[in-house]
């Protein structure tokens, strides 16, 4: 083959239609992330320490104090879904730092020169961020069971919890990715990550009912996706738990937030490599 033919030759292999390719590419990216976790799960394990402390220390003390009115639900039953949502949030919100790392190394450039769409690349990252959170869920379930939380262990409620955890964490991972694209350095990212997590956490129904909040905070809680994640988890995870809104509404809000965040992230992602 002469060099001239080489350049003129159509390149590549027959490709599937773009919708199929989107999911294949996203899964390729997610799989890469999951393989990395399998090689080195240290980070996941250290992130599992925090929810354990919330349940064992914070939860046990407040349950004794009986300070928070949680209706028919015991405080530990009320708190467990909140802690699950919180640990998923905390593991997802620092996801962006890995993206800055990849950019500093040059791994990011490799992905961006591939024919995969930008949206598929960020969707893959988001999916990985969502699936990572399932490890947290397993830890929370084990600890919750040990301290006597009344868990719903049916197939359907658990499938629901998996969906809500993955959807929520994928959204927060994408949010984290957007921040990474904006701040671009690890130092600034760490600062902003710390600043964001606490308000998201406290302005949600994770550790106390929304009804207890002053009205301005209630307003914030209503636009906070974490509130809807906790709401769905509370109905699905523990016996006697009910949703303040409704599970379809919660899922709708989480899915909508994820799509909006993905579109924004897909736009910003290529700027990291400029």
């Amino acid at each position, binding site marked *: 083959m002469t060099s001239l033919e080489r*350049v003129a030759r159509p*390149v590549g292999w027959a*490709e*599937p239609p773009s919708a199929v390719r989107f999911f294949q590419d996203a899964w390729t990216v997610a799989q890469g992330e999951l393989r*990395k976790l399998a090689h080195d799960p240290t980070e996941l394990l250290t992130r599992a320490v925090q929810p354990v402390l919330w349940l064992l220390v914070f939860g046990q003390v407040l349950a004794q104090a009986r300070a928070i009115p949680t209706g028919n639900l015991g405080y530990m039953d009320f708190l467990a879904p909140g802690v699950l949502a919180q640990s998923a949030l905390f593991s997802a919100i620092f996801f962006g730092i890995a993206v800055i790392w990849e950019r500093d*190394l040059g791994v990011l*450039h490799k992905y*961006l*020169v*591939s024919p995969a769409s930008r949206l598929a690349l960020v969707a893959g990252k988001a999916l990985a961020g969502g699936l990572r959170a399932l490890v947290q869920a397993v830890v929370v379930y084990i600890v919750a069971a040990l301290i006597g939380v009344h868990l719903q262990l049916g197939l359907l409620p658990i499938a629901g919890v998996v969906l809500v955890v993955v959807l929520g964490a994928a959204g927060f991972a994408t949010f984290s990715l957007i921040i990474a694209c904006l701040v671009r350095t690890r130092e600034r990212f760490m600062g902003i990550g710390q600043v964001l997590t606490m308000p998201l956490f406290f302005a949600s129904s994770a550790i106390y009912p929304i009804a207890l909040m002053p009205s301005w905070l209630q307003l914030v809680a209503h636009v906070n996706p974490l509130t809807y994640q906790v709401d769905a988890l509370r109905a699905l995870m523990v016996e006697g738990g009910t949703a303040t809104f409704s599970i379809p509404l919660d899922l709708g809000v989480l899915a909508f937030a994820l799509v909006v965040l993905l579109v924004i992230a897909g736009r910003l992602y290529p700027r990291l490599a400029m």
Partner: protein
Amino acid sequence: MRAAIETRDLRREFGSVTAVDALSLEVRPGEVFGLLGPNGAGKTTTIKMLITLLPPTSGSATVAGHDIAHEARAVRRSIGYVPQLLSSDGALSARENLDISGHLYHIPAPERRERIEEALRFMGLTDVGDNLVRTYSGGMVRRLEIAQAMLHAPPVLFLDEPTVGLDPTARRAVWEHVRKLREREGTTILLTTHYMDEAAELCERVGIMHLGKLVALGTPESLAAEVGPGASLDDVFTHFTGSELDDTTAGGTYRDVARTRRTARRLG
């Protein structure tokens, strides 16, 4: 003859700085072309525009016959790219790195596996293919990166400072592989470097960039002849880019130095 890479008045500004200024260039099919110049000359910016990572401020370019602005996806399918930094993921094995690339370029399963094994064999990495890349030496990482960039058999390959931070033995090995690759696949290669021996060794033609402009173009021999009898490519470089003793630009900015040293350290 249809060019493998063609740029017309390509220009990129960052704020008030013009990083690439009215660059018009043709790289022939099958050619190994070297883009030379001191740090900050605009080499990397040029490559980033050609591989669709950075939109040009004005001007146009085609790569493998596709317009970089309007046919970005077709360009991406036609190119391989090895960045100056490390592009293989250290937390994955070589096989996993190659597998991700194989999937992203939609190489069908049986052929993908075949090409991955072939790539590992070609680069002498078969035995360590399942080890994490972070355990590799710098030369091995570079070979893997080139293999990864070539997995989908692109007609055009971009190498940005392919041997920065490598010791002389590893550099020679990389050169050897680039030459073999080109012989076997007929790939058009555009590489940037500021090592003159590298350019003289590998490139059929070189372009010298200085402050964003192309200031010289030709074969290493013809450029040397232009400068004077007995001139080396080093002399050519100094001749066209001004005195290397100009301390305000020599050696690049703080950021350049930090990056090069960091890369060098990672490559070990």
